């Protein structure tokens, strides 16, 4: 059954902008992206919104709905009852127009992460490993790169200056995925995670985990294990001594 809902949409660009109120029809079962499209079709023909799959798998329609980073295609209108729904672009990134933010920061950070480095003697197609050795990393492969975790992370959301030195939760799970991979041979991944990608800036407030639409346990399964691995090599004198005596990094 259709009903009218109140929607507040942020409109503008990097120079100026503000929230505009509209009334729009919403049908049973519709998601926020549906009503934004209806507004675009009937009232604001030039409204900019980024979207693609409408199935929660492409990560394109990331925006903030009533202040929370969410995928618009996975957010039911009915969940808000009679409340006005406020939609804004991601607030951690520069705005381009209306609901579209410039997320290129994330692509720059992605390029800074050293790639997977298999053993040199390993011939393509000959890699063999057991399921239990790769299942931890597989959780992180569910990431759809919606960048909601990057958006909600206060390290960059509230401190623009930290963007230079902080990769963000999405890339910490990438680093963890590689560091936990049984065939990755890159030696300095833990050290660079701390010294170059800003792992130590994270203070474990778990907002990244709360907003992840794929329910990846970013903090518990990636960031904290990486912090513990960094502690092994940088802050644990007993482990350090052990690694010198036994000539290994404790990663067998």
């Amino acid at each position, binding site marked *: 059954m259709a009903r009218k809902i109140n929607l507040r949409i942020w409109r503008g660009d990097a120079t100026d902008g503000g929230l505009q109120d509209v009334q729009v029809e919403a049908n049973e079962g519709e998601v926020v992206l549906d009503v934004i499209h209806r507004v675009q079709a009937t009232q604001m023909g030039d409204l900019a919104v980024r979207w693609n799959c409408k199935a929660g798998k492409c990560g394109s329609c990331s925006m903030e709905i009533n202040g929370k980073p969410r995928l618009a295609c996975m957010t039911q209108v009915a969940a808000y009852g009679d409340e006005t729904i406020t939609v804004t672009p991601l607030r951690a990134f520069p705005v381009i127009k209306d609901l579209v933010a410039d997320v290129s920061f994330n692509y720059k950070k992605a390029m800074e992460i050293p790639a997977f480095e298999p053993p040199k003697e390993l011939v393509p197609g000959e890699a063999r490993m057991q399921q239990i050795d790769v299942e931890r990393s597989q959780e992180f492969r569910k990431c759809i790169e919606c960048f909601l975790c990057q958006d909600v992370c206060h390290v960059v959301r509230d401190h623009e200056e930290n963007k230079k030195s902080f990769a963000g939760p999405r890339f910490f799970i990438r680093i963890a995925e590689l560091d936990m991979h049984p065939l990755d041979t890159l030696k300095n991944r833990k050290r660079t995670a701390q010294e170059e990608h*800003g792992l*130590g800036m994270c203070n474990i407030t778990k907002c990244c985990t709360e907003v992840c639409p794929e329910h990846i346990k970013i903090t518990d399964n990636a960031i904290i294990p990486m912090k513990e691995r960094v502690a092994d090599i940088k802050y644990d004198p007993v482990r350090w001594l052990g690694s010198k005596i036994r000539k290994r990094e404790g990663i067998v």
Partner: protein
Amino acid sequence: MSGVFSPTRAKIKERTLRTDKWWIQPAITFGVLLSFVIYATFRAFEGANYYKDHLISPFYSPCLSEACLPEATILGWTPVSAEIFNFALSPALIILIFPLGFRMTCYYYRKSYYRSFWMSPPACAVAEPHKKYTGETRFPLIIQNSHRYFFYAGLVLNVILTYDAVISFKNPEGEWGHMSVGSLVLLVSSTLLWFYSASCHSCRHTIGGRLKNFSRHPVRYKLWSWVSVLNHSHQQFAWYSLAGVAFADIYVRQVATGAWTNFYFF
């Protein structure tokens, strides 16, 4: 102007547009943790009412000071002077650094107090009030990386507190095979502490998380899997064990002051 008010970002004057009651959770955490800190500080300095008839408060165990009641010590071992620089040292102050350090550096409590006390951030997508942020990269917060050492110390304390729970199965005359409400309280408290320690992230890492190849270490993989299950509930164990320790101390204090009678089941 920084953060969400940076020049290139969408011009929105509110710190957050969240419409839910996001402040309730940090406010409750603030209230509960502050209450515990005030009570624990009072008890740590009280230096009395921590032992009665084989019940010893977890705040005062192990009792290592020369000021300890002889029956509250472990085999009469009191290596620490009762006074330091003419200051009468409560036995609790000698050992509280270890459980305090364990909880202060705990990955769960870090989330709690960074949000509720330091407001960094107060809640997700709510702008924090601080102008600068360096996280855990500098002193003093870099000390958070010592969590594993407090975890090891916590294990030793758990063994001692479990010993205290076992000792409490004596009657006031020192005969074994008796159980009181106090025994039950100490037993539940020490059990919750074991669950809290076993579900700890450092425990998970130490027991197997640091490995790259689980298939080469099947026993450690199995242990890691079990700890991972417990780890899902680390937050709950953190609160339950805190409440357990606080209640155990309150119970022993009440019994020691004579306000409550320790009822014996058998």
